[in-house]
């Protein structure tokens, strides 16, 4: 039977919840899996995954792996993957950067950003969104080894299933020669008390209409709901919101229980990133805005009066 190697994603020395979506993929594929954790403190982080039913937890721990650079990570992943059939990683910016480089090393076909998997008697078929989510492709990988990246919004984070897999150390492979030509300079992490877009139950997103009042109008609502804040490309491009908040085809893809689209027209690139949300609320003063075609509840109002009113109503 095929064996899956999952690559964990860390932030600040801890496992990111995106990793739990990769575990959910392995469970959906109905195949045994092991987890590889890379980093400067990989074994400590690996312990956080002991209760998820992995066959093995493998830690590649080395100071040279402090920052996730593909030229340093890919060689170790490829070396460990020699004993596996499928390598899976979450389709976050971490996974999207890394997975193709690993696939090329393994001479493996790569299915990016998959939203589903079926196991037909050992033969895997993957489903992935294309054309801004307007066509799902069913794909098969024709090579003996396979690499996939997993859409976090479609594979709900796996819960611990009990057990305690021990953490074993694995050798760190020499970095690519190219590693000498790339250096980490700094990480400018967004400082925010709000939850990550990929993990939030509620998201409050704003568009171009918010202008310079983006934070002033949306933050109190997000605060009240414990929500993450998102944005359209237009809001990010104009500098009303930082780039990492962009939701859409070319930003973050999200599927919260509740999504507010406020002053967002609903261009197909935006819809591609949030159409999977359970309940969608749109607030827009244009009754013809395309966002209303996907919204469960719409308010045709000026957002600058509707949002404060909404906050007041919720506080009642």
């Amino acid at each position, binding site marked *: 039977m095929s064996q899956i190697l999952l690559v964990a994603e860390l932030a600040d020395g801890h496992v990111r919840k995106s990793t739990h979506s990769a575990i959910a993929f392995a469970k959906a594929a109905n195949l045994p899996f092991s987890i590889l954790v890379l980093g400067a403190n990989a074994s400590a982080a690996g312990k956080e995954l002991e209760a998820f039913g992995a066959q093995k937890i493998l830690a590649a721990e080395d100071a040279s792996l402090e*920052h996730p650079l593909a030229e340093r990570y890919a060689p170790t992943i490829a070396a460990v993957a020699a004993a596996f059939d499928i390598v899976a990683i979450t389709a976050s910016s971490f996974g999207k950067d890394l997975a193709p480089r690993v696939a090329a090393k393994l001479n493996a076909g790569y299915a990016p950003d998959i939203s589903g998997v079926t196991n037909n008697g050992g033969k895997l078929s993957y489903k992935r969104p294309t054309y801004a989510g307007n066509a799902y492709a069913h794909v098969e990988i024709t090579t003996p080894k396979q690499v996939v990246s997993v859409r976090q919004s479609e594979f709900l984070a796996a819960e611990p299933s009990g057990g305690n897999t021990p953490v074993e150390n694995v050798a760190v492979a020499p970095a690519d020669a190219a590693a000498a030509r790339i250096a980490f300079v700094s990480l400018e992490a967004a400082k925010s008390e709000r939850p990550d877009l990929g993990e939030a139950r509620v998201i409050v997103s704003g568009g171009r209409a918010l202008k310079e009042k983006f934070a002033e109008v949306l933050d109190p609502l997000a605060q009240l709901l414990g929500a993450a804040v998102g944005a359209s490309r237009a809001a990010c491009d104009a500098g009303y919101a930082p780039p990492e908040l962009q939701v859409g085809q070319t930003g973050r893809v999200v599927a919260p229980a509740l999504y507010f689209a406020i002053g967002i027209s609903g261009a197909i690139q935006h819809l591609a990133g949030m159409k999977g949300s359970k309940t969608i609320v749109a607030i827009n003063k244009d009754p013809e805005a395309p966002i209303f075609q996907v919204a469960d509840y719409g308010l045709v109002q000026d957002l600058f009066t509707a949002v404060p009113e909404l906050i007041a109503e919720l506080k009642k």
Partner: protein
Amino acid sequence: LVPLKRVSDPDNANKIKINGGKVETTGLEWKPNPFDEYAVETALRLTENGAAPKTRLGEVLVVSFGPKEVETTLRAALATGADRAIRVDATDDQLDGDLVARALKALVEREKPDLILIGKQQVEGDSNQVGQLLAEYLGWPQATFAGSIKSEDDKSLLVHREIDGGSMVVRVTLPAVVSVDLRIVAPNSVQSKHSPAHKYADGVRFAALMAIMAAKKKPLVEVKLAELAPDTALKIKVTSYEAPPARKAGVKLKTVAELVNKLKTEARVL
């Protein structure tokens, strides 16, 4: 070197039809992949000569894989300022990202560019892979999802990568692969010591009529796919396409109070 793909009009992707498990884009116009236009703009800005604006400090070579008609896309890039174009003859169904990357590798070994600027994704397949695959095949460093690039000394680039939760700054020494993100075409995103004094407009430049005429005389050559990649076997097989589940429009409500009530009692999400 900048790879360039044509895509069916991305602003109307919701008008595609799925028939017998296949995607039909009939009626949709071909457009250059937006990220590739951004990569061309980036290449033009990096080779701009502030001291002598009519000259360029480097050559910009654009490459597309596709049938004869993609020459329109290549000519458009030549009109905005690229110097030369290569079309690798192939149809879309003969290609996957891996084959494009392997063929590009062979082309890079011939052309010896200092820098490959590539779109982070093409917006039909949304694969986000060719740049990274190519970097590995070449043994070059990769700086993906660049939101800004500063050319420090013509030998290395300081790149702000847009990542989940913030940005990561890396320094790459050329030759390298840099994949570009949306913000790369903001007015101040691309800087070098040769940058002109004027500020760039937001977005990509348009071709003047004269330049469109002149572009017809710029070199555009055809290369056979098999010449670049002897092994044309695909690693990915699309078995079929299916339409996504439709999401039906909901209701428009009159008041905020009504909305809160629905969210609590009907959707039960509050």
